[in-house]
């Protein structure tokens, strides 16, 4: 055997396997440019075809849940920013919602509006960047990604002037929000929202009918309706498979029932559907944003009865979930009456959506794996916690 072949670990042919040649085991990640963080896939290849794929994660484990159990309720809020670090405001909201349920706190009207505005802006920028990353994984040398980042900049500027930070916002509080909107914020937000349709048109012009994109995504990574439901997949990935489930509609948390918006549904459940569903969802988000920015009332932004220091909810448990950009994000809390939660549990959409990865990838090429992974939209901060 020549020296060069020794370096490559050849997996012995498994009995009964109907492969012509030998299999090659490749470890994609954790230092791989398109695994969206420190994620590893143990891929077994037959030529370039995927025979087996084992997702390996845990490289970014930070003990989030255990830390939160030793932290005051408020102290966990900035940690939730770091779950899905692309969408800190929706994470904040889900956690605040769980604590509000636990302690029975009411949220003032204006705060509900601010929450919806920030959440929909978060959804918009997440989907825009995801589409950018997806095309980047397809090798589009970053052009759509840069357009997405250009628009995201406007949203991050809004977040910065509101919350003081661009990504780690730490903005929601139990019973409302931390600070009121600064002067001129609504006008700035309206101007930004008004400029987004043009950007979406640009995106569509650039990509939607591109033959190469269609060839790369249509029929790739098909997730069937039944399997999606059985695996507990949520968010745009689930809706691309044609299942009409959106927590905003199903649970009507916050004041989402006041807004008229539609849920785009895919039919084939392939990568192209996942991509298009997100693109259409962005347009729906803009509708919500326009209405919310028009109707936002004046008033207090936080329930004056909630205490900042020495917050101790009654013993009990609560689970609240919201439609985060990546899917169904839930927080489960048990209180024993002390200032720390007795149990704190996150249901991260990325982790659950990631479980179907192997099913989607088998039989496809190496090149498809990164595209399918990109279309599932994971953030390792949330997967590993």
């Amino acid at each position: 055997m020549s020296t060069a072949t020794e370096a490559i670990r050849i997996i012995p042919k498994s009995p009964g396997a109907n492969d012509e040649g030998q299999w090659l085991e490749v470890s994609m990640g954790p230092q791989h440019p398109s695994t969206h963080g420190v994620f590893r896939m143990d891929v077994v290849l037959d030529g370039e075809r995927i025979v087996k794929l084992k997702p390996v994660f845990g490289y970014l484990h930070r003990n989030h849940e255990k830390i939160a159990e030793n932290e005051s309720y408020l102290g966990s809020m900035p940690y939730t920013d770091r779950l899905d670090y692309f969408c800190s405001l929706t994470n904040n909201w889900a956690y605040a919602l769980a604590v509000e349920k636990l302690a029975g706190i009411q949220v003032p009207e204006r705060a509900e509006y601010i929450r919806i505005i920030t959440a929909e802006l978060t959804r918009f920028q997440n989907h825009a960047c995801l589409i950018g990353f997806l095309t980047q994984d397809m090798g589009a040398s970053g052009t759509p990604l840069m357009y997405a980042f250009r628009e995201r900049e406007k949203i991050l500027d809004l977040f910065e002037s509101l919350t003081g930070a661009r990504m780690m916002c730490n903005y929601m509080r139990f019973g409302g929000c931390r600070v009121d909107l600064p002067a001129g914020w609504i006008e700035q937000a309206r101007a930004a929202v008004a400029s987004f349709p043009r950007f979406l048109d640009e995106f569509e012009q650039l990509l939607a009918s591109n033959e190469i994109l269609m060839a790369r995504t249509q029929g790739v990574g098909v997730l069937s309706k039944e399997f999606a439901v059985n695996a507990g997949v949520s968010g745009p990935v689930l809706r691309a498979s044609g299942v009409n489930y959106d927590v905003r509609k199903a649970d009507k948390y916050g004041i989402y029932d006041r807004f008229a918006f539609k849920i785009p549904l895919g039919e084939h459940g392939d990568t192209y559907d996942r991509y298009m569903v997100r693109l259409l969802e962005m347009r729906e988000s803009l509708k919500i944003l326009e209405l919310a920015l028009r109707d936002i009332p004046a008033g207090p932004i936080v329930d004056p009865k909630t205490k900042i220091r020495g917050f101790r909810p009654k013993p009990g448990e609560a689970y609240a979930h919201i439609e985060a950009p990546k899917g169904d994000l839930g927080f489960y809390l048990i209180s024993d009456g002390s200032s720390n939660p007795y149990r704190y549990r996150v249901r991260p959409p990325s982790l659950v959506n990631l479980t179907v990865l192997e099913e989607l990838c088998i039989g496809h090429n190496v090149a498809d794996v990164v595209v399918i992974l990109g279309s599932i939209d994971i953030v390792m901060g949330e997967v590993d916690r």
Partner: protein
Amino acid sequence: MTLSMFQAIDQIDQIFVTSQHRLVSDLPAEFQSISSAILSVIAIVLVFALLFAITTVLERKGLGRMQNRYGPNRVGPCGFFQPLADGVKSLTKEDLVPRTADQLVHFLAPVLLVMAAFLAYAVLPVGRNMVLVNLNAGVLYFFAVGSLVELAVFMAGWSSRNKYSLLGAMRAIAQMISYEVPLVLASIVVIMAAGSLSTVSIVDMQASYTGIWPHWFVFTPWGFAGFALFMIAATAESNRSPFDLPEGESEIIAGYYIEYSGFKFALFFLGEYLGMFATSAMAITLFLGGWAAPFSFLTWIPSYLWFFAKLVLLILIFIWIRGTLPRLRMDQLMSFAWQFMLPMTLLNLFVAGVWHFMPAGIVRWLVCIALLVAPAILLSRSLKQGKKFAVRHYRFAE
């Protein structure tokens, strides 16, 4: 215009040729031919290395502007000294060689790649009377030397002992060999028309005018189709987007040169760009009239300027395409080569024959265009039909 003006123009056009003659004329007769060859080689190496440097800046700035960024703008005026900084950086970087790599082959691969790329320039006429060697089988020599690139790439991929580089090398070999077939077939139409394999005589044939219009081969149906097919194949041959699968950095990271660092990596980069320049220059020679001016009244501009203007234009188109398109997949790439490119190039050969034997006139044009367009549409349909790619419409739930 007076005769002296014509002479002056001619002198400027031939300035490099005459100065080379003057330089070597003092030497003893037996050294004259070799020293003139060495001078030409030095000129080619310097000019195209400089073009490489300029292209990297242009590419980064152009891509940046397409993506609404500035691109490099810190080193020197408008960032044009960026390649110098990059060169210094790559020279001072640690040269890592994997312990288990085949040391000799690992070292030879980038050298061979750059050498092969430079060899191709021997037969490319960059201006009137400006060609290193006027081989009577110049086109054949060009494609033969071009095949050396595949060897270099495979040497790099195999000797690195890395699974990604092996995958990259496999992809590169499959892709380059598949696209070499349409590349050669697309250029055969020109050889048929010109009746010569010599690059110099091919350009000479195109350097005449009817009225103000030139006789470039691209201005015929078969020439245009041949040019388009040649450029597509050349994109794949030089591993440029959307056919950059061998190095697809989002899939197999950097493909065959994943284990290269420092100056060897820079050599790979250089070799790749030189290959792109060479195939573009070949396309110019075959279809775009080489160094000939596009209109008869513009012949006073020196021929080498025209050649480089055309080359830069093609490079800009490469950059534009790179900034726009996502990458194809391996199987799609191969089916495109064998199911679309190969039949189209073969058909183009037939059309070139039809053109040759039909009387000149509008009928000849219409027949040839019909013969090319109809099969192209049919073939692209059949490429799509198995997969049913379409823009979809979505339903909404309330």
